[in-house]
């Protein structure tokens, strides 16, 4: 899948002498984007410190770095959204100075923002041609707009119905609309900001196929991301930023995930740590025949001192299951037991009182109150327990002391506990949320997507916390879309498919191929690229060569 720049079309004659630290390939395509000495200062931070970036025609160039490393600032500067304090920008050899995205677009740049900039109630065709509309007698020429979308879609393998309402489309197709928008405007260099953050693995693969065909036509792609796997599989060159500076320029074919991760974090990182197994005790969570919207007759148990991981393709009932367990979704049939007590129809408050803590998937809308202070967010929930006072008053000093203790214990980076939670970075907000819930010391922790969109460093810290929590004798039910996370943490892995637990594996048997097959319903072709022998061996969920206490297929 990787392709060297020298395979690119139009191997030009670039002798400008400012080539990046790639080991001097004989012939290189001409540079389309050259940033020299870009410096951008915000009050209190130096977001970009004399950054150089060279991107050549026909390549997929990955710009990597942790949150806050300066990637977004650099792209904002390139795209005319921010003025640099120093430095120069050359596009296709010409020195430019963009005052707005409009002028950057006119120079052949186009950007797909991480949060899509689309009009949900308008059709695909209307979105694509917006501000560059084909006209007839002053009116919008819908037929021409539709035709244009079909042509572009066909040419670039971006099939999408021009008459569909964008709001009705899944994310993968919305992203296509964003790309079509840029192509309609004649963009020659496409900047994609974290394009796979919202995509399923299959959608991500499809995206990379499209990007490949675009570069094959001589277009150029800049990929802003912090995901290692896709960079290794999909890019030609990598520039790594850390603390606003370029710390590495690598050729993808000659590098490894570990090298990039080390450059990003500034220290050696073990990417695929597998934590040792726990020693399960008595049953804490006992779910029997649970049904709710999206979940059918589901059975599972979680024991003290055990992490049970739930794997599955998004939308197979995982969120609904967790919401039902947390008391946010009514149960239509079945029984939920927590430490022997029936909590099937208990309210969320009652469940928490009986020993449940919950880290929801959506940390912004459900997990925290962004406008409230860090201290108040950390106090939430604890106001019923440790912080409660007989008169129902919350002494500010106690709230602050509680906050300071948790901030320190979980390494949450906040200037003071009085800043609003919205001022925290994603990783720190997640630490806040997880820290708050762990601090309950509840016998059962429900945790959904604990590290989505979080830096490598923070991921490791969060994983260590979860394992320590388990080792302290608590039960953890983990739902994650990241297979590596499930495999690294879970003592037992359950696979959910169409609302049921369809397979259960001991830690030692949960390899990626096996899980991939079960996640696809057990009948489809294995999705993982590494699938070879293991995939054919596992036709039924029950592992054959498992440990003595082989778990039963019902997930128990």
């Amino acid at each position, binding site marked *: 899948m990787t392709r060297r720049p020298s395979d690119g079309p139009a191997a030009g004659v670039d002798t400008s002498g400012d080539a990046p630290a790639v080991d001097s390939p004989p012939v290189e395509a001409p540079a389309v984007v050259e940033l020299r000495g870009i410096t951008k200062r915000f009050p209190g931070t130096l977001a970009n410190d004399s950054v150089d970036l060279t991107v050549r025609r026909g390549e997929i160039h990955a710009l990597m770095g942790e949150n806050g490393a300066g990637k977004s600032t650099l792209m904002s500067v390139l795209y005319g959204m921010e003025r640099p304090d120093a430095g120069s920008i050359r596009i296709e050899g010409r020195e430019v100075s963009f005052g707005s995205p409009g002028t950057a677009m006119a120079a052949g740049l186009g950007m797909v923002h991480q949060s899509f*900039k689309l*009009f*949900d109630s308008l059709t695909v065709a209307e979105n694509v041609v*917006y*501000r560059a509309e084909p006209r007839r007698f002053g*009116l919008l020429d819908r037929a021409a707009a539709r035709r244009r979308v079909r042509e572009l879609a066909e040419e670039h393998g971006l099939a999408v119905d021009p008459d569909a309402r964008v709001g009705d489309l899944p994310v993968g197709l919305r992203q296509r609309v964003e790309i079509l928008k840029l192509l309609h405007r004649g963009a020659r260099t496409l900047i994609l900001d974290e394009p796979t953050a919202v995509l399923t693995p299959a959608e991500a693969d499809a995206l990379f196929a499209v990007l490949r065909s675009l570069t094959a036509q001589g277009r150029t792609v800049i990929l802003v991301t912090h995901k290692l796997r896709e960079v290794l599989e999909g890019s030609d060159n990598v520039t790594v930023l850390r603390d606003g500076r370029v710390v590495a320029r690598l050729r993808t074919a000659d590098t490894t995930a570990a090298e990039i991760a080390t450059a990003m974090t500034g220290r050696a990182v073990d990417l695929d740590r597998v934590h040792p197994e726990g020693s399960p005790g008595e049953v804490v969570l006992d779910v029997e025949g649970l049904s709710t919207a999206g979940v059918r007759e589901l059975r599972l148990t979680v024991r003290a001192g055990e992490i049970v991981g739930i794997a599955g393709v998004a939308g197979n009932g995982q969120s609904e299951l967790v*919401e039902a367990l947390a008391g*946010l979704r009514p149960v239509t049939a079945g029984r939920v037991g927590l430490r022997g007590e029936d909590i099937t129809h208990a309210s969320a408050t009652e469940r928490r009182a009986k020993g449940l803590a919950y880290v929801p998937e959506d940390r912004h809308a459900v997990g925290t109150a962004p406008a409230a202070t860090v201290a108040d967010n950390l106090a939430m929930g604890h106001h019923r327990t440790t912080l409660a006072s007989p008169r129902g008053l919350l002494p500010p000093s106690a709230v602050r002391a509680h906050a300071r203790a948790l901030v320190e214990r979980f390494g949450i980076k906040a200037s003071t506990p009085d800043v609003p939670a919205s001022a925290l970075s994603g990783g720190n907000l997640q630490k806040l949320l997880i820290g708050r819930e762990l601090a309950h010391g509840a016998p059962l922790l429900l945790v959904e997507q604990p590290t989505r969109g979080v830096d490598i460093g923070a991921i490791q810290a969060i994983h260590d916390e979860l394992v320590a929590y388990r080792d302290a004798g608590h039960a953890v039910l983990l739902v994650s879309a990241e297979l590596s996370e499930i495999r690294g943490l879970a003592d037992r892995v359950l696979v959910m498919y169409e609302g049921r637990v369809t397979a259960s594996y001991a830690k030692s048997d949960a390899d990626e191929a096996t899980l991939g097959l079960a996640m696809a319903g057990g009948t489809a072709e294995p999705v993982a690229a590494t699938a070879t022998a293991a995939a054919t061996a596992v036709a039924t969920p029950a592992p054959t060569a498992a440990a003595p206490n082989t778990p039963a297929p019902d997930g128990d």
Partner: protein
Amino acid sequence: MFFDSDLLMSALRALTPILLAALGGAVCERAGVFNIGLEGMMLMGCFTAVATSWFTGSPWLGVLAAALAAAAYSLILAVGTVTLRGDAVVLGVAMNLLAVGLTSFLLRTIFGVQGTFDDPSLAGLPLVGGFSPLAYLAWAAVAVAALMLSRHVWGLRLRGVGEAPEAAATLGVSPARYKYAAVLVSGVLCGLAGAQLALGNVTLFSENMTAGRGWIAVVAVMLGRALPFGVLLAALLFGVAEAAGFRLQGLGLPQQATDAAPYVVTLGALFLSTAQRRRRTGRTTGVAS
């Protein structure tokens, strides 16, 4: 017979001011400006129309002046919400209150009367084929607005601005310009609505003579989902209610009860449309899944 062609005719006459104002509200709604200042803009139009017609002797100049004055008045909303990023609801309410006070004050200082200014020599709008010329204009405006919004490039951009201003801005469309334009259009239409009310439906100015018609127009925008033909249907409903109120008066019901008819219909319609919307997006819990 209670429902006959006379009732329909009087309904059509009654609906003109509401329809014009509601069209203005719909354009604003599409541009993402919640305009509840229709009432105040309309009242400014009423007064300006009467004063101009009185001093110039020409109801046509009255209509023109009303449109200009209400458009100027609407700038309060445009500057306040778009440029100064104020709250549209607060501004709209303030504009409505200010218009009542300002027109009453001007009535006293210019005409030296309180309550109502009414003079036989005040020139009103002529009737053409049984309707005020502004009624035909209102119907034409429905079609023009529908065409502009759904088929014209300007309408597409306006809708985009209303839905996702940031997205429009990244494509080089200035949301501020479109919002200003939409508010000014609503000002012109509300001015015409006021002129129709003061020189068409009647020929006089009385304090607070809009009597909630601007609010009814706001409801018509909601009921009609800010679609020009939807707004027409909603305005027709209120027109029928108002005409039926007169008719009921003739049947001996107390005037206080019949005057309430349009407002009762408003309340009922709002209730029904909200219930319907809730059914469509019904959720069991407050948590997004």
